């Protein structure tokens, strides 16, 4: 029977898995597999496991519970080992690497921040900054049939948008990075210019959130920040 793995944590950590259920249509019971130094939280892997809402939520709920009690290495959703013995063998074989990872993360949690900017405002800045865009904008407004000019205008805007979004992104990151231990950027979702996760010491999480809040207040309403956390350090393992 194959084994679904949720997380790896130090073996000497007390665990409270009461009331939690594993993934699967018929929820599986959570249990632990421990080597000398590490514990893996696992359950039986359902035969037909897919990334259903219910299952992703179950995976995430386990992470949140474990995170409440200390540092943890969260597994990506859907990781399945051939059996318990193989998981235990992996814990033994890679013990040093996992312990090192746990130590590096320390007592830190992840916060994910996404940022967007009102598009009209962004375009007004593009127009203000670029002579070429202003010129092409005038021409295409007077002559809406000029497809070539329109494409050239769009291309020029696109380049400026990229530059300004990059600047906006690094300004936001630089404003928050001093309150975090590390950060990791990721693919930016539609209509946003920034998707970044910060690794924040638990002890200063409130300070970090205040800093985001203060920044958000200054940026509104043109810029919108959306903060999600605390999360297990998905982006830093």
């Amino acid at each position, binding site marked *: 029977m194959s084994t679904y793995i949720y997380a790896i944590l130090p073996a000497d950590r007390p665990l409270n898995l009461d009331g939690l259920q594993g993934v699967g249509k018929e929820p599986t019971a959570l249990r632990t597999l421990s080597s000398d130094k590490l514990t893996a939280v696992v359950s039986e892997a359902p035969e037909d496991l897919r990334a259903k809402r219910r299952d992703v939520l179950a995976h995430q709920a386990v992470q949140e519970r474990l995170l409440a009690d200390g540092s943890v290495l969260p597994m990506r959703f859907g990781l399945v080992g051939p059996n318990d013995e193989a998981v235990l063998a992996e814990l033994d074989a890679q013990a040093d690497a996992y312990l090192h990872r746990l130590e590096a993360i320390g007592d830190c949690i992840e916060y994910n921040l996404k940022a967007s900017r009102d598009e009209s405002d962004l375009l007004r800045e593009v127009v203000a900054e670029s002579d070429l865009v202003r010129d092409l904008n005038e021409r295409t407004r007077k002559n809406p049939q000029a497809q070539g000019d329109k494409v050239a205008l769009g291309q020029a805007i696109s380049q400026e948008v990229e530059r300004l979004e990059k600047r906006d992104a690094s300004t936001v990151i630089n404003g928050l990075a001093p309150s975090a231990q590390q950060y990791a950027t990721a693919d930016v979702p539609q209509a946003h210019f920034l998707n970044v996760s910060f690794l924040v010491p638990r002890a200063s999480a409130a300070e970090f959130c205040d800093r985001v809040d203060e920044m958000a207040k200054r940026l509104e309403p043109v*810029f919108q920040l959306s903060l999600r956390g605390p999360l297990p350090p998905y982006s830093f393992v």
Partner: protein
Amino acid sequence: MTVVPQANAPTGGSGGGSSGLYDVLELVLDRGLVIDAFVRVSLVGIEILKIDIRVVVASVDTYLRFAEACNRLDLESGNKAPSKITDLIGDATESGAHGKTKGALSGAVEAISDSLKGGGDDDDDREPAQRKSSSGTRRTTSRRREA
């Protein structure tokens, strides 16, 4: 700002609500630790997530959309001056490196030159760039990692 509920309870873990699931889906599905020798369940059927990731802006369709949005700008918003992020929150790359006095001064200079340049009429309610002094601000090294 949208703050997901448990953001103000850093040590709590009571969440698990489904309202914010979408926000963390990419983290749960795309990040987190993997063990190379083990298999992952098929994610077939949830590629829909990926569609939402922004396509590269370099396409003729995008160019034309930008061009038309730009053509329409004045009709929608008149001559409203754009916001500049560094005016709103300061250029944080300089925080700590310069004293507060210099920060406040150059902030004011920027605000003035902006209003001269743009002829902006709504600058009055904007705050000049503010810079934090180094006191009370912890500097830790941050490492950039590409996901």
